[in-house]
């Protein structure tokens, strides 16, 4: 760790801020190519039905229509973990909104008019919307041939709607219950919500008929993941797919799977080389992309009277929607966070992922942690109340510290959890006695904490290239989804190599040119790609000093590179990098090129008993949110006054960037909790516009106090870890905890609505 860092830890404005502030940034919705056609989609109005007949002649007659594609024309299945999802429905539909027919036409209006003319005949099948009903015997089968799908890494139950079953235990449950002095049993529910990024899903695809190559322009945050999905689905080779990344108008997990891309590909296959653009309408974005998985959690927890946790058994039922996506991973890795960041000697987990006839669940910021944290933290509060403990106290008693063992036996390093609890609670004035009532309004405070790991092991690779004049390019496939990824990588490179930040450019990824990256997800970019960049950067610096040594006839060990200048020990500045390279290459030109590859695979930090090593994470993130709310006891409305959000990031490479992530996640969590829900009627989403699917506006936000906790990670680039994913997890339980503190009502099912609060208040007799 450099004591006098120039870039790491400094408030560096985003290097792509200029493009965004001037309107120059090109997002996937902005891509415009010569000869481009526009796509439009006919979607199922039924949640579960057989397709009997599709009548497309009305559409084909319209001038300007260039292709009409059905599932029969393009009968492929995709899916990252279970290959269960058609590009266009083939013989049946499984959710309202599922794509059935796609049209490409010269103008958007023509494409839309063409889809209006297409007639599809269905035969209804009994739908099932509730995962409990869907997993019961005799439930209508949503995927009759589940066992025929290619699937990796998950346990499916054929002839049922259960597409992933995961069980885990460690310790001795019987002993655990015996040693417990109090046992709590509670059930919690958390609802599905939409990602609804401001930029809807969109993609342009082009198929070169003679090359048989697909080129895609997309805002996906995982271009290599999507390329792999296409390659597997279409049974083609990797060199036949190229993803060119645009700027992304927000993902929150939703752009890590084939959505608009799949439809664009299906159309482009039939338009004789003309590119096709598919832009989701807001209605399609809200109803036919992906959602956060809803979950029902049953917790049985044994504790000592002083609040020490002894045993926990968790039954988790995940609502998958109609297709899998990343569901099995959410249900497996996400489920484990139901044990919280706490020492629990005896644990047992049974998790079911169940199909229902609704919009598919997908990766959503938190990847299951948000759902589990809701249940875990809500129960911590219930136990605290019963045992007469302060909610902060019970958490401090059980919180992980450096050197503790995770549930699989991994030794935990870089554990800033307690500091997040201390600082968040202090920032909100925890424990201070203040006047609470004002008219019909009552105030209260609450807090919650969370743990999240990162997908391990995953790989990142990059090239760093130095042009003859010293301009440096980082070739990396980390997409800029708004999390400041580009800036952080540039900071790491600048710091590592010893050059001004302004000499570094980080172009948008292009899988033809930028090497493999697992993707921007799982809060992994700073750590993994950051390490790859650091490794490449170190090699670049060595090479530069080696050349300098040659040119100056000096031992490179006496030379330093700082801010683009070669310095000699005891003799000051010798020459600039630019001058050095000019001397080296002359008019012929040349380049310096180094690769950086990082995978945590061999790290000793992951050590655990062999059959459980897969549960280790190369780093763990911890966060605590402390909330102060005001409840209007006449209307049930909850006004969140402030939220202190403390996050252990290892090392804040870009503190402003970290604050942005924290503030953003608090608002996402708050919005999900208080304003958002899908109003369903027979599987159809009634609130399919942003007028009725309500997202927090400027008038709905509390004062947010972001707090950066740094508990250095031994192997992170400049000791950094990650931030984005867990950031929204503790918000809901912190708010619920504060409501309980204010008015003594306990909400166990999300979302928190004024009606629920009012009903609970009445039941409590406080009206």
């Amino acid at each position, binding site marked *: 760790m450099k004591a006098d860092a120039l870039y790491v830890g400094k408030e560096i404005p985003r290097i792509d801020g200029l493009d965004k502030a001037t309107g120059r940034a090109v997002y996937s919705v902005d891509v415009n190519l010569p000869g481009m056609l526009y796509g439009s989609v006919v979607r199922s109005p039924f949640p579960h039905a057989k397709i009997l007949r599709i009548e497309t002649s009305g559409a084909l007659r319209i001038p300007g229509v260039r292709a009409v594609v059905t599932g029969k024309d393009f009968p492929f299945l995709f899916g990252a973990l279970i290959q269960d999802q058609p590009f266009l429905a083939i013989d049946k539909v499984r959710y309202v909104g599922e794509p059935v027919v796609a049209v490409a036409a010269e*103008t*958007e*209006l023509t494409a*839309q*008019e063409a889809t209006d003319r297409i007639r599809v005949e269905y035969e209804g099948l009994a739908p099932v919307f509730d995962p409990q009903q869907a997993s019961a015997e005799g439930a209508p089968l949503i995927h009759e041939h589940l066992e025929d799908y290619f699937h990796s890494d998950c346990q499916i139950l054929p002839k049922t709607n259960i597409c992933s079953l995961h069980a885990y235990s460690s310790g001795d449950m019987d002993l655990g219950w015996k040693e417990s002095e109090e046992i709590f049993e509670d059930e919690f529910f958390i609802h599905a919500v939409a990602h609804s990024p401001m930029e809807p899903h969109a993609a342009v695809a082009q198929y070169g008929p003679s090359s048989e190559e697909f080129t895609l322009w997309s805002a996906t945050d995982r271009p290599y993941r999507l390329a792999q999905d296409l390659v597997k689905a279409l049974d083609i080779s990797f060199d036949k797919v190229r993803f060119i990344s645009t700027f992304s108008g927000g993902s929150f997990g939703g752009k890590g799977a084939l959505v608009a891309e799949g439809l664009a590909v299906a159309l482009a296959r039939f338009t004789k080389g003309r590119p096709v653009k598919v*832009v989701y*309408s*807001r209605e399609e974005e809200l109803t036919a992309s992906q959602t956060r998985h809803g979950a029902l959690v049953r917790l049985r927890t044994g504790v000592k009277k002083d609040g020490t946790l002894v045993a926990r058994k968790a039954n988790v039922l995940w609502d998958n929607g109609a297709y899998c996506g990343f569901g099995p991973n959410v249900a497996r890795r996400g489920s484990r966070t139901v044990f919280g960041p706490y020492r629990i000697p005896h644990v047992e987990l049974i998790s079911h992922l169940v199909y229902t006839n609704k919009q598919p669940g997908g990766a959503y910021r938190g990847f299951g942690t948000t759902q589990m944290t809701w249940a875990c933290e809500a129960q911590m509060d219930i136990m605290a109340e019963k045992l007469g403990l302060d909610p902060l106290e019970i958490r401090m008693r059980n919180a992980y510290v450096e050197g503790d063992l995770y549930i699989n036996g991994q030794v935990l390093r870089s554990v800033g959890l307690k500091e997040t609890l201390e600082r968040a609670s202090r920032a909100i004035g925890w424990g201070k006695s203040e006047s609470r009532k004002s008219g019909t309004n009552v105030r209260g405070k609450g807090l919650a904490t969370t743990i999240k790991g990162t997908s391990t092991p995953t790989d990142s690779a990059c090239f760093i290239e130095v042009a003859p004049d010293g301009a440096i390019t980082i070739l990396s496939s980390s997409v800029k989804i708004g999390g400041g990824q580009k800036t952080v990588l540039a900071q790491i490179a600048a710091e590592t190599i010893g050059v001004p930040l302004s000499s570094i450019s980080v172009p948008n990824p292009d899988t033809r040119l930028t090497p493999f990256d697992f993707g921007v997800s799982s809060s992994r970019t700073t750590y993994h790609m950051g390490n790859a960049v650091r490794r490449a950067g170190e090699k670049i610096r060595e090479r530069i000093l080696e050349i300098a040594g040659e040119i100056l006839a000096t031992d490179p060990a006496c030379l330093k590179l700082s801010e683009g200048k070669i310095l000699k020990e005891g003799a000051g500045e010798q020459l600039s990098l630019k001058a050095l390279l000019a001397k080296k290459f002359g008019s012929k030109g040349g380049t310096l090129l180094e690769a950086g590859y990082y995978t945590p695979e061999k790290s000793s930090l992951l050590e655990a008993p062999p059959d459980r090593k897969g549960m280790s994470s190369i780093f763990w993130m911890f966060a605590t949110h402390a909330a102060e709310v005001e409840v209007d006891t*006449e*209307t049930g409305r909850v006004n969140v006054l402030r939220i202190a959000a403390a996050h252990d990031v290892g090392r804040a490479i870009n503190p402003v960037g970290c604050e942005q992530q924290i503030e953003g996640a608090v608002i996402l969590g708050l919005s999900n909790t*208080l*304003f958002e829900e899908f*109003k369903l009627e027979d599987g159809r989403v*009634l*609130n399919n516009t942003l*007028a*009725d699917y*309500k997202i*927090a*506006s*400027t*008038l*709905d936000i509390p004062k947010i106090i972001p707090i950066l906790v740094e508990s250095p990670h031994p192997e992170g680039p400049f000791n950094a870890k990650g931030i984005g994913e867990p950031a929204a997890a503790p918000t809901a339980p912190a708010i619920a905890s504060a409501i309980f503190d204010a008015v003594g009502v306990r909400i166990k099912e999300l979302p928190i*609505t*004024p*009606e629920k609060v*009012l009903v609970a208040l009445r039941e409590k007799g406080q009206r």
Partner: protein
Amino acid sequence: MRRLAALTYYEPITLSAAIGLLAEQGEGTYPFAGGTDLLVQMKRGSLRPTALVNLKRIDGLNRIEGRRDQGVSIGPLTSISAIERSSFIRSRFPVLAEAAALVGSPALRNLGTVGGNIGRASPASDMVPSLIVLRAHVRIEGPSGAREIPIDKIFIEPGRTILLRGDLITSIVLPEASSHSGAAYLKLGRRQGMDCALVGVAASLTLAGKEQEVEEARIALSAVAPFPLRARRAEGVLRSGPLNAKRVQEAAAVAMEECSPITDMRASASYRKDMVRVLASRAISRAWAMAKRGEEGP
């Protein structure tokens, strides 16, 4: 996003030409003011006009004309934001400016018009309850002539007013507010930001000199009936004796009984009913406080 189909377009420059076009062309030809409701309905397919008659080229329909001691006449094409910002409206009819500030969002208010808001006949209109308690009349001109009707009488059902084909609202007239009167509009939404009202309550009180004596009372409710309606029995309660906290509560409870909200995706009927009582109580109290301060009047 949804694109609009081909249509015929007219830009008349006189009111009579507009009325003539709408009457002659018949079904499929729609008047077009701010467009904030019309275009949304067209994109969703709930309206499919074949022709639009743009009213905005007609001169003189977007003015706020206040006459000393004689109230105000507001043109139908006056934007919601113009009403929100008008110093005349803010000083003489502040509740209307407050209601205008709650419609949609700032950018929508720059496009939307008061005539369009009324004509849309949304049960949840934010403007109409305030206009009702301010005793507004609507002037309508059409093929069969002109008429002036109290605003609470023009609504038939959600999305429909008594306006027939060719009829246009040509002005909204508010009589002078008396001194010792006050009015308030409260809106309950799911979030603080741009929201369709779950419940809206406007109340106005005119005191007869003494603080407790109510000369006139009006209460209007939105989002809890097929159209914004007056809670006449609740108004009667306020007039029935000296005003105090208990009578306010009583009036609010009666207002609750007068409405017939539905359960929809936004809220349940029972919650809406409860909130009518809460909001009515708060709105009446606020109007009373303002009347006591003599905030309205010249």
